[in-house]
């Protein structure tokens, strides 16, 4: 039996968005590995373009879900739950880890380019994915579900 009004039955609510935010981080490295093989493992132009477009979409979607633009389709109550003080703090903390990772990876690349040729595409792919993975994993860690009191 549902307590939610019938027209809203299929729409996501704050709890389901928070549940997805907790689940998603662990799948992201796999998605990037798969996309990387599509972009850099094939020489056909079309496959590379499709892979790049998919990568850009996944990256923007992750930014949207985790570091957030407002989700206008949710009710005001759900938006308030998703954007409460704790969520903003978690988001800021995750972003700070992401920026720190970005700079560290950037430093590593700047040092590595003294010995190996640094391709711009691979550099950008590495920077974006490294920073995103660190930020999203930090987000997942801070946002992990609290254990029940009787556990």
């Amino acid at each position, binding site marked *: 039996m549902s307590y939610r009004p019938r027209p809203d039955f299929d729409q996501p609510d704050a709890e389901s968005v928070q549940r997805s935010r907790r689940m998603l981080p662990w799948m992201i490295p796999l998605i990037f590995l798969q996309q990387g093989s599509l972009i850099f493992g094939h020489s056909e132009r079309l496959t590379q373009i499709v892979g790049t477009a998919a990568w850009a979409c996944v990256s923007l979607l992750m930014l949207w879900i985790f570091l957030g633009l407002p989700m206008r389709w949710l009710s005001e109550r759900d938006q308030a739950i998703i954007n409460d003080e704790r969520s903003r703090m978690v988001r*800021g903390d995750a972003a700070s880890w992401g920026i720190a990772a*970005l700079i560290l990876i950037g430093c590593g690349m700047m040092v590595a380019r003294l010995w190996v040729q640094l391709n711009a595409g691979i550099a950008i792919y590495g920077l974006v994915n490294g*920073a995103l993975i660190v930020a999203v994993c930090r987000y997942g860690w801070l946002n992990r579900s609290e254990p029940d009191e009787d556990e």
Partner: protein
Amino acid sequence: MTQPSISEKAERLNKRRARALPALGVIFLAQQASFLSMPERSARPVDQLKIGAWLILSIVLLAGLATGGAWFRPRAVRELLNDESTRAHRQVGYVYGFWAAMGTALGLYIVNLFEPVSGREAVHIIVTVAVATALLNFGLLERRALRDC
């Protein structure tokens, strides 16, 4: 003459920080013009030194943003400088910095498909945009908060 109290010191430093950070962000951005004229495979030690100095400056600016600065002041002053609103502004600055870095990176990736960009330039632009956006945002939010007081 009486010594200023800890809260007076913190207030003075807070105002100074709010003035200095946006200026530092703009100077940091303006400085990058000198890198655009540098050849990609330059082996001159002075160019490597320039890149090293840029990396160190980026790390110092980010560390200043993360800790709130005033590293050589007493702990009590630093704690007052790091109040709740400052922490909230910092979090917003980080989120904007991260968004800006990701947007720039995706934009550069598309530009690179038509007009080749070197790896060094790409790393340089993305890191600079992230640090400068975070700094500018934090500084501007702090200034606005001080003006509203």
